[in-house]
């Protein structure tokens, strides 16, 4: 099938400047191996992985070094031929120290190439076997949330998936990884989509792509002609179009209930980068050992889309891309939902889609003074989840965290940042939501 012509979208949202021009033309280039890799055992949502290697042990590229710590967990694989230096604590983007496997990379010898694909074998798997095979690859959502992919592929009893939604929106400003993957790895992407269709037993798949990527829409629509189950749908360029609930709303006109999951409206959403990696890894029985990262921003001399071995310290990546002296802030992810990091020793993990480096100039432009809420209601107009960020922010300041959750649907907030972006008083609304969520989480575990 061809492409639809109507621009589909959701209500509310914003349109921040895109800033994608710096990297959109640059092809994915492999990063050289750093001397040391750090593999945190908990870089996904769910239980941490359990290490199965000992210090001083030698591992080959792609070897499993940690096994899944439960069903909602994934194994870890060695991104390079290396020696296990130690199993100790490493800094994560959240600022906490978590257990990690430290690898000393063997830079002398050749890194072995990935094995050949065996599509026939993977095509013969039943949906259950397929889910288990997906877990073995260590795949998690590469869009940023790092939720284990196999968990989304397992359809619970009594539920069904009729449509696989493939997320190629990439609505975050600055980031171009998904765009490049769609252009350069479309074959892997379609293999991945077919795996998702088989695992979920869904009848069709829709690839949603924002209209600011006409080349990707054209290329994938042409490729989709060969498979009647898969079609490409352009969606309006608007933030946060790439949030799964917004994309479902735009493409299927269905609303995920408050506190619910896409499965509640018979849909499953996967990122294009996730499915493209899966389409490459699964037939080869390989683990996830590298990912595409957009390194960009005014603080970088050579912005681009790099294929980065997982566990590479941010410092090494930025040295390679050339960090300017004026660089002042490093953000993992995009400017809207990414997190500023406090140390460059932090490794690139499975969920890191971009590294944005800002300079003094951008930071100086940012208003610092916070004014009182003037009840203008712009945040309410912007919130894609139809929440009342103004009220939530005021309640958070008064430490009414339980009320926020019980009466104002705090947990439906996915921290997209639209409210803080439009706020004329510069109220750090997202930060207030995060504080409330953190305190509520703490109180629940304390009980």
């Amino acid at each position: 099938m061809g492409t639809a012509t109507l621009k589909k979208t959701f209500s509310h949202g914003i349109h921040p400047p895109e800033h994608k021009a710096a990297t959109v033309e640059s092809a994915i280039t492999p990063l050289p191996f750093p001397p040391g890799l750090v593999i945190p055992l908990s870089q996904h949502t769910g239980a941490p992985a359990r290490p199965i290697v000992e210090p001083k042990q030698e591992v080959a590229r792609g070897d499993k070094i940690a096994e899944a710590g439960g069903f909602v967990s994934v194994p870890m694989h060695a991104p390079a031929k290396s020696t296990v230096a130690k199993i100790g604590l490493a800094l994560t983007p959240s600022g906490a120290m978590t257990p990690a496997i430290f690898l000393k990379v063997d830079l002398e010898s050749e890194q072995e190439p990935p094995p050949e694909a065996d599509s026939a074998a993977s095509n013969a798997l039943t949906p259950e076997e397929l889910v288990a095979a997906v877990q073995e690859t260590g795949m998690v959502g590469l869009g940023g949330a790092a939720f284990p992919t196999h968990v989304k592929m397992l359809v619970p009893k009594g539920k069904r998936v009729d449509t696989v939604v493939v997320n190629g929106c990439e609505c975050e400003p600055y980031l171009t990884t998904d765009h490049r993957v769609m252009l350069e790895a479309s074959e892997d992407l379609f293999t991945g989509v077919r795996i998702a269709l088989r695992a979920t037993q869904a009848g069709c798949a829709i690839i949603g792509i924002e209209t600011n990527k006409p080349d990707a829409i054209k290329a994938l629509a042409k490729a989709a002609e060969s498979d009647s189950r898969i079609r490409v749908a352009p969606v309006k360029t608007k933030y946060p179009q790439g949030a799964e609930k917004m994309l479902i709303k735009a493409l299927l006109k269905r609303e995920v209930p408050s506190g619910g999951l896409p499965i509640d409206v018979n849909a499953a959403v996967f990122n294009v980068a996730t499915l493209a990696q899966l389409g490459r890894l699964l037939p080869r029985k390989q683990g996830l050992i590298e990912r595409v990262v957009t390194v960009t921003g005014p603080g970088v001399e050579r912005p681009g889309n790099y294929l980065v071995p997982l566990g590479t310290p941010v410092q090494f990546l930025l040295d390679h891309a050339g960090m300017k002296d004026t660089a002042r802030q490093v953000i993992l992810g995009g400017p809207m939902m990414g997190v500023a990091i406090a140390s460059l020793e932090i490794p690139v993990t499975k969920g890191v889609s971009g590294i944005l480096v800002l300079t003094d100039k951008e930071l100086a432009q940012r208003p610092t003074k916070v004014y009182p809420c003037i009840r203008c209601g712009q945040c309410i107009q912007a919130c894609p989840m139809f929440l009342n960020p103004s009220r939530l922010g005021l309640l958070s300041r008064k430490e009414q965290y339980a009320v926020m959750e019980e009466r104002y649907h705090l947990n439906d907030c996915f921290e997209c940042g639209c409210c803080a972006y439009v706020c004329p008083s510069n109220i750090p609304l997202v930060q207030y939501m995060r504080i409330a969520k953190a305190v509520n989480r703490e109180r629940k575990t304390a009980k």
Partner: protein
Amino acid sequence: MDPVALFTAGGLMLGLGLILSSVLAAANKKLHVFEDPRIDQVEEMLPGANCGACGEAGCRAFAEALVAGRVSPAQCPANEPQNIEAIAHLLGIDAGAQHKRVARLACAGGNNVAASSATYRGVATCRAATLIGGGGKSCAWGCLGFGDCMAVCPFDAIVMNRNALPIVDEDKCTACGACVDACPKNLFSLHPVDHRLWVACKNELRGAEVRRACAVACIGCGLCAKDAAEGLIAIENSLARIDYDKNELASLEAIQRCPTGAIVWLDKEKGPILGEKAIGALAERKAG
């Protein structure tokens, strides 16, 4: 105006009033709940801060528990000794023993000795800063110094010193635990006031890794464990851990050879006392 209507209206209101007041009088008799007058008297003699340190929901609840005989007067750690005596006298019970406990901070890394890897800009509370890359301090465990504990303390027992480190006033602290809950890095814990030997660090890394982050961090060298009385101090997760069951064995001896000053003696008058070696090392650092 018709005088008859006036009298009828007046008479009706009077009759209604009489009926309703007799209903109220009957209800007052029938539905009367006896409340021990001593509860009010006891409550008068409590601090009225509703801090919850006694384990009850507030001072009123504690007063009720006292009159019911479930608790002893000294279980309120915030109360004055003479009030405790007065309550015991009023109720004719034993005052019980008041175990003075205080909040202790397991960090000595003020901004004069601890390094930071980034500058945090945003909502100026520890809780908010912790969520952004841990707050920018090089030590992931360390005190961020925005003073959430000071803000939450109902007894003004915590003040931030000039190095942005909270100082607990032993006399004012009632061990209500508000700071324990408020600290996002979980640095506060409640201890009997006679626990004087103290490890003011939570960093679980070792040696040079720790020293890069903070000059007064525990590097897990184990010298204190060697110098202290048998079994008093053990090294766990590269941190000295004091076994307070053997607190009577604690002495100043254990802190003398600590190279960084992570293990201290908390003197009531002088504040934390460091060992000689640590004092020398810090003086050298200041000079260099």
